């Protein structure tokens, strides 16, 4: 089976993101960029499947700027077999990304698509679900456990109520959550090997995506600063204030 893993280049998880001076976006100068952490977990899961013999090939794909090659190289150094970058310097919104991934699926014909549950930049949490709908295949989102029995995947999903299990027939789209695995450290010799693995760069336009209606993005601003409240003098006053606020059930 071939596994297709989608990865996105995002501002690193450890960077404190700040709104730029004119509010048109966030500061990107000098900011470290990385593989979206959930996508890295997806890459790791695909590699483990390959190592277990559940998959034959791991292909990583990204839609993004030319510099996203760095993130694809990292995925190759982790162990992916080959990489494709569909170069798009402008933002690609989730529905357009899902349509693009569908076009890639038509060409690659994978048995499984693994994605992160969401990208930590726009926090949309949409692409996997949209792709599954367009592909008319099953989806399993928020996945923290994954097993395969023949052509069915049993996914454990981290839902609000607890851990839900569903069976999905393959091919399917799985979006992964934090606790699925702990991605491996990239090893130095593997970074060298990754430089020789195939990385195709193709123009996004080549996919022939029909662009859907786009959300218009306006002002970016920092979240409102939390204001201090009042100091109370006693436990009685505290309990009364809590009751007045209606927060004690």
């Amino acid at each position, binding site marked *: 089976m071939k596994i297709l893993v989608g990865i996105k280049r995002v501002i690193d998880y450890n960077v404190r993101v700040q709104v730029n001076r004119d509010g048109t976006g966030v500061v990107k100068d000098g900011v470290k960029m990385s593989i979206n952490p959930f996508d890295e977990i997806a890459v790791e899961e695909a590699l483990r499947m390959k190592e277990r013999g559940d998959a034959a090939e791991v292909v990583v794909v990204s839609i993004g700027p030319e510099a996203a090659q760095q993130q694809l190289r990292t995925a190759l150094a982790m162990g992916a077999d080959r990489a494709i970058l569909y170069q798009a310097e402008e933002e690609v919104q989730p529905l357009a990304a899902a349509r693009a991934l569908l076009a890639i699926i038509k060409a690659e014909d994978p048995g499984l698509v693994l994605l992160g549950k969401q990208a930590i930049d726009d926090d949309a949490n949409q692409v996997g679900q949209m792709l599954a709908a367009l592909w008319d295949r099953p989806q399993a989102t928020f996945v923290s456990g994954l097993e395969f029995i023949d052509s069915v995947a049993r996914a454990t999903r981290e839902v609000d*109520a607890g851990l839900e299990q569903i069976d999905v027939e393959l091919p399917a789209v799985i979006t992964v959550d934090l606790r699925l695995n702990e991605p491996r450290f990239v090893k130095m010799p593997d970074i060298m090997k990754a430089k020789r693995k195939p990385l195709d760069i193709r123009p996004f336009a080549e996919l022939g995506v029909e662009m859907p*209606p786009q959300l218009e993005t306006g002002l970016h601003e920092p979240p409102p600063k939390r204001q201090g409240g009042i100091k109370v003098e006693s436990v009685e006053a505290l309990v009364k204030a809590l009751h007045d606020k209606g927060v004690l059930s």
Partner: protein
Amino acid sequence: MSRVLLIADHDGRTLNTGIARSVACARQLGDVHVAVFHTADTDAPCAAAAKLDGVSRVLSVSNPANNAPLAAVLAPQIAELANGHEDGYDYVLAPSTTFGKDVLPRVAALMGVPQVSDLMEVIDARTFKRPIYAGNVITTVKVPEGIPVLATVRIASFPSSGQGATANIVSATVDAELPTHTRYVGLEESGGGDRPDLQSARCVVAGGRGVGSKKNFDIIFRLADKLGAAVGASRAAVDAGYVPNDMQVGQTGKIIAPDLYFAIGISGAIQHMTGIKDAGCIVAINKDGDAPIFEAADLGLVGDLFQLLPELEKALDAGE
């Protein structure tokens, strides 16, 4: 008046509390219909939805296939309802629970329209605020004219609607082809007899370095149990070995948004505050009246926690 379709999140018995909050958002946009997808014997949530202030109609969609919250099964029905039912809806909303996040993008793709995730504030009929970068940036997005607005509602941003309404419950039939490639196996509910999960608890009691020792942390657990709360800790308390790592709240620990947060013996370093910036009400108890926690707490009490906490437990007992 615009027509709003809100998709109910329920477990076959009760309505998710996020629905009452989503209604508060939905009613700012138009006339609210709540759609409940269920089987013949799991229609109790319809009645609960009909009571919510601001709901004018409940659409009860009964189908044996609706025995579990499967996005692949529900999305075609929702899209059909949104497109076709009585001229269609201007808005399709779902709470940004794991249910809503799972199903609504699938609906959006079927309808060929974008979705707004985590709508936190309505600016005008098509313009909304939403958080990005884990809530560190708020952005404004506008949905273009001529298409329905699909959005998940960030429930922490809206108050709950009251329960004084008596909306009509109307059964609706939806003609959609439903897939069988996805099957529900089961749910292992979290929590149960133990304390609630830190990440999803409505109330959290957290202790810091000021608690002083692993043994002293019992006083935090006792208060938490009294309140039915989860227990958290600051990094300093974790580093000092009072409690395990998975209880850490803050930048490098868990980011949480309970309705009520007790910070006890926690100084309130920025790194900690980052983890609770979306909490509803923050209560600080600390002996240092100059601690930064008081600059962000809604209610502060300066004093010795070992004296104040037992008093607080007693006062809570008295109030019961």
